[in-house]
């Protein structure tokens, strides 16, 4: 970060300034003139928080995608199907057991197992054939989507959050000040805050795993040069299996999360596949911090766009992607290779 700052002082200044303005907008109570030009502060805050939460969900989906891509050069276009599968399984399990928390480990293990089968039976057979892998995963996603449509039908499902997470919680952020001088604090659904917190914890956990453990060292080495890693005696196929399982499992968990605060229906798989594609393209292929930043940008732009320019909110996302591609094809944090 310090290197970036010394190399691009102007950009650093602009980014820091933008962040400062954003934070100031969030924490300061808005004066009536500001409310006139920018609209109600509550709406703005909701858009920001919605965007950050959506970004957290996108991060969960995309980090697995980018990890798998970074290490194995596999483009798993069936990633969205894994997300939807995880969501449906989470719905079934939470209906069966009645517990929300227990679905997470179960779904993680099941979807990770699916991922292991995928890696072992599909990707390993066509190692190095990018195009064929991509096509096979497209075929798989078509088949999986139809199988899921067959079993779960076309209606949408919502996974219910447990009681202790339902309802709003009050955040120490001023939403507005009434004429009487009474301060109104922002109230926001507790389950979304929990999701946000969980995504941050998972992100930090992944960073620690990658940067502080032996396995993480192997993975990072594999991202840089897998042949050399294999040549130095590491059983790279096991690492591939582990990473693929982890990425798939994350997609499954993200399915539960998405099913809790949005809904699950056919078509969500392509939606999240596209979202993770865009996030990963914006953030940079194979970079976890890149996925985090990309997810945040996309989530925020989607929600802010939805509030302030509802017609073209979806287009903003792709506009950002096109801009990034045009000026920095490897993504914001991607390394040019």
């Amino acid at each position, binding site marked *: 970060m310090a290197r970036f700052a010394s190399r691009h002082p102007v950009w650093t200044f602009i980014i820091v300034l933008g962040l400062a303005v954003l934070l100031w907008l969030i924490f300061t109570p808005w004066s009536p003139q500001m409310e006139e030009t920018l609209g109600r502060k509550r709406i703005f805050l909701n858009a920001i928080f919605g965007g950050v939460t959506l970004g957290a969900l996108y991060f969960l989906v995309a980090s697995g995608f980018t990890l798998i891509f970074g290490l194995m050069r596999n483009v798993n276009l069936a990633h969205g199907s894994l997300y939807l599968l995880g969501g449906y399984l989470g719905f079934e399990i939470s209906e069966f057991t009645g517990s929300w928390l227990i679905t997470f480990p179960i779904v993680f293990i099941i979807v990770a197992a699916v991922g292991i089968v995928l890696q072992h039976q599909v990707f390993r057979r066509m190692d190095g054939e990018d195009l064929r892998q991509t096509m096979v995963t497209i075929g798989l996603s078509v088949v999986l989507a*139809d199988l899921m449509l067959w079993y779960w039908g076309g209606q949408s499902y919502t996974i219910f959050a447990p009681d202790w997470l339902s309802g709003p919680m009050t955040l120490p952020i001023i939403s507005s000040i009434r004429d009487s001088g009474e301060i109104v604090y922002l109230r926001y659904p507790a389950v979304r805050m929990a999701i946000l917190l969980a995504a941050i914890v998972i992100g930090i956990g992944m960073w620690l795993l990658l940067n502080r453990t032996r396995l993480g060292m192997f993975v990072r080495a594999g991202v840089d040069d897998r042949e050399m890693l294999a040549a130095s005696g590491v059983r790279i196929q096991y690492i591939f299996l582990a990473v693929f399982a982890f990425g798939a499992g994350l997609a499954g968990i993200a399915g539960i999360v998405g099913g809790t605060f949005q809904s699950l229906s056919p078509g969500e798989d392509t939606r999240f596949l596209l979202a993770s594609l865009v996030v990963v393209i914006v953030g940079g292929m194979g970079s976890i911090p890149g996925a985090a930043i990309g997810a945040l940008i996309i989530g925020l732009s989607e929600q802010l766009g939805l509030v302030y320019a509802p017609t*073209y909110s979806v287009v903003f996302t792709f506009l950002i992607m096109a801009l990034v591609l045009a000026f920095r094809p490897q993504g914001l944090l991607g390394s040019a290779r």
Partner: protein
Amino acid sequence: MAVIENPDRSADATPRSRSWYEGISTGWWVLAAALLFMPAVANDFVLFQVFGWTFILGMIALSLMFLAGYGGMVSLIQMSVAAMAGYMVAIFGFSGISDLSLGMPWWVYLPLAILIATIFGTLVGALAVRTEGIYTIMITLAIASAFFYFTRQNYSIFNGYTGFNLVVPPELFGVDWRQPMPFYYLTLGCATIAYLAVVYVSRAPFGLVLQGVRDNPRRMAALGYNVVAHRIAAYAFASVIAAVGGILLVWQNAQIAPGTAGIAAVIDILVIAVIGGIGRPIGAFIGAIIYVVLSTFAPDFLLSIGMSGERFNLLIGLGFLAIVFFSPDGILGLWDRWRARRAKRGDPLTGESASGGDAP
């Protein structure tokens, strides 16, 4: 109408093929004759729905095949380019939405539609050639879905979710081109021209350079060729074919909506090109006819074996998977291998295949 059309087309076909008269194998003559006299035996449904659709999808898949097979760029934008042309026909020409359609004459809106779609495809290509391999797939897929969402949201130009209806071809030369038989010959003619154009370009210097760029861009750059310009030009050429296909598609359906270029449709074009075999132009049409026959008759077939007719996607997906798994070069690859094996058995001394390769 056949009387008007038939001589027209055969007169068109003979001079073109006279110069390499001997090079064309019997199979192609049989195919040409069969296609030309198809209306004598086939009913309207087969002509319009099966063959018309096959030729249209085949053309759009052909543009993908040209980029992927000769240029090494798997672009998923082709369906969006086609839909763009279709939209432009509806916007500049006539449609049921008279508020938005400008009602220009056909000799204005047809070239305009092709031009705009080509510019669109070329711009996307210019963005996509900055990337390679799988990245190209992802970026074109992302732009294609952006196009889909944009057309769905935009009501002032693209009329949003509903799109345009009652988009019909102009009545040229006193022929109603939406009648099954004229439409059959129209699509057949366009598909033939597109096919021959692709074959011609693939053997022209431009196509040879493009194939060189596909195989080794660095070496071609070292030889002094402008790699990026050739790739973008390939996108432009493919966009023209896709645009013509898109215009025919909107005429066949008589309507266009965002779903025409939805993500499923975009993927379908890839499926078609891959099923047929992405290495050769005819593969696009073989894939198209397999896809069309499957999608037209699969519901009946599935019902007859006791499954729900809605499982059509499962059938297509499984077929696609099987092809990609076992024969990456599609049906044509299977056919080649079968022929090579037979030829080997027939000629044990040389071990070479006796048949003389593929005809144009």
